[in-house]
């Protein structure tokens, strides 16, 4: 009796949080959904169609391409770095790299863009020292953005994959060797299959980070590289034809769908990797 009273009471303690999220997060999303399907006051899929055509479609594809490239490169390079650190005998190296990864994984936004502009931008220190400008170097394009996004993606992958690498037990390798497996065979049939969920999970996180990044791109390239976040910002700040304001909402819906699909891959994967790595 007493127990059930406590139970119902404790449910109320969570109520403010749920109400808050429902109002502050739910209402804008509902309005977003409503606005996407409204044109000149009536129901219409015109906004959605427009958001999947022409320059908008190019921007969406550009974002997906950039994020996929960053995710793959970041996942591979981050795993190599993590493996180098995990197998090192120096404890201090490991601690240092992990702390640095924690900081750099959070080093995004405008400051990141400016640090790279100061390094490899047109008047950057490295550009002028090495005379890269004369060789047609420019940071302000697709590849420059990839280079900059990797700066926070690789550390994020290191943080994600180190626990998984720690979970690769030496006994598994020894068992494989006792059965006559070569190093390649060990990785092909034991190591990589066990790591796959962690690797893919990391790649999904990197994809999400790069896909939703706006500040760095805005500060670095303005609108010279077509990205969906930049298009949405443009449309929101009134940079569209009259009557087409809701295209920004439709583009946002496109983004949520893409991000949601990618995340949907991540959650079951994480459950699978948790089974092996404890």
């Amino acid at each position, binding site marked *: 009796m007493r127990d059930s009273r406590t139970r119902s009471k404790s449910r109320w303690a969570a109520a403010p949080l749920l109400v808050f999220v429902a109002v502050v997060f739910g209402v804008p999303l509902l309005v977003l959904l409503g606005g996407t399907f409204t044109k000149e006051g009536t129901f219409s899929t015109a906004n959605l169609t427009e958001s999947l055509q022409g320059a908008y479609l190019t921007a969406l594809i550009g974002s997906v391409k950039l994020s996929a490239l960053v995710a793959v490169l970041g996942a591979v390079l981050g795993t190599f770095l993590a493996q180098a650190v995990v197998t090192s005998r120096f404890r201090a190296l*490991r601690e240092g790299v992990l702390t640095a990864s924690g900081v750099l994984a959070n080093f995004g936004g405008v400051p990141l863009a400016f640090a790279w502009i100061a390094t490899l931008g047109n008047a950057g220190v490295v550009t002028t020292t090495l005379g890269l400008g004369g060789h047609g170097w420019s940071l302000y394009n697709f590849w420059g953005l990839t280079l900059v996004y990797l700066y926070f993606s690789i550390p994020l992958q290191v943080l994600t994959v180190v626990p998984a690498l720690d979970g690769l037990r030496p006994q598994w390798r020894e068992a494989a060797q006792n059965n006559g497996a070569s190093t390649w065979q060990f990785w092909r049939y034991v190591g990589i299959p066990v790591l796959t969920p962690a690797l893919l999970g990391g790649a999904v996180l990197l994809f999400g980070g790069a896909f939703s990044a706006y500040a760095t791109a805005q500060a670095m390239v303005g609108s010279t590289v077509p990205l969906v976040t930049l298009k949405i910002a443009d449309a929101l700040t009134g940079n569209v034809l009259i009557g087409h304001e809701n295209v920004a909402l439709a583009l946002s819906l496109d*983004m949520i769908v893409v991000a949601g699909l990618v995340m949907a891959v991540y959650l079951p994967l994480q459950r699978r990797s948790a089974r092996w790595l404890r």
Partner: protein
Amino acid sequence: MASLTPQVTPGTVPGAAPAPVSARPGRPRRPRVWRGVVLLLAGVYFLVPLIASFVFTVKAPGQGFSLDAYGRIFSTEGFGGSLLLSLGLGLATIVVVLLLTLPAAVAVRLGAPRLRPVLEVVCTLPLVVPPITFVAGISTVLRWGPDYLASTPFYQTIIALQNPGFPVVLVLAYVVLALPFAYRSLDAGLGAIDVRTLSEAARNLGASWPHVLLRVIIPNMRSAMASASFLTLALVLGEFTIARLLSFQTFPNWIYRISGSQAQVSVAVSVFSLLITWLLLLALSSAGARQRSGS
């Protein structure tokens, strides 16, 4: 099988693990070369921008070394105001996040475990929905609000939310963005203490529920609450997307605005903000280490 090394810590795997692609003999030597190359490349990639940014700020064209750009940070118009605004927003966000999240996290641990999946989903959603789409929704609400609500008291609320001196709407948005991080660190903190025994003991001794929360649970949760607050503060101090698209002059927006006219100062602030993040996180991890060795 027999003769396996019974206990080897992951850090000292015998023969060190080589890259997946290296299958050649001579393993004891190769991995060391491989590891050295990887670490060297990573070192170059991660250190060069930091060093170059610093060089960029201290080397004025035609002059030698000077720390002038760092001094000019403070005299640049808008610095104090935007930093204070961001700090204020950060503090308000921390208070609201903790007030909302702590009771919910405790409730899930104690009496309503069935709410756990609900909370997990609610606290994952802000990670799935990109901030720019969130702000697209918010700005639409703010734009539509006046049209539909002009004759109701809500109209005044919508205007008040957007007061440029202290935009409450940013606090609301940042609370949503900070929820995943705050909830996770508080939940981890609650997992590390025996909430049920503590609260039952306190209840048996006649303490009321607010008393249990304030005098028993919160004192045991200091480091988890500190980490939730730090993460929230770091998030608010660096948030650009929402503030820019709703046109509020927060600190990151200020950095962006001055970059056109004062490139050196904006890079100097960037270096500076990285240093501050580094210090915050170091404080955080050392506080966590102390907590672990203490308990």
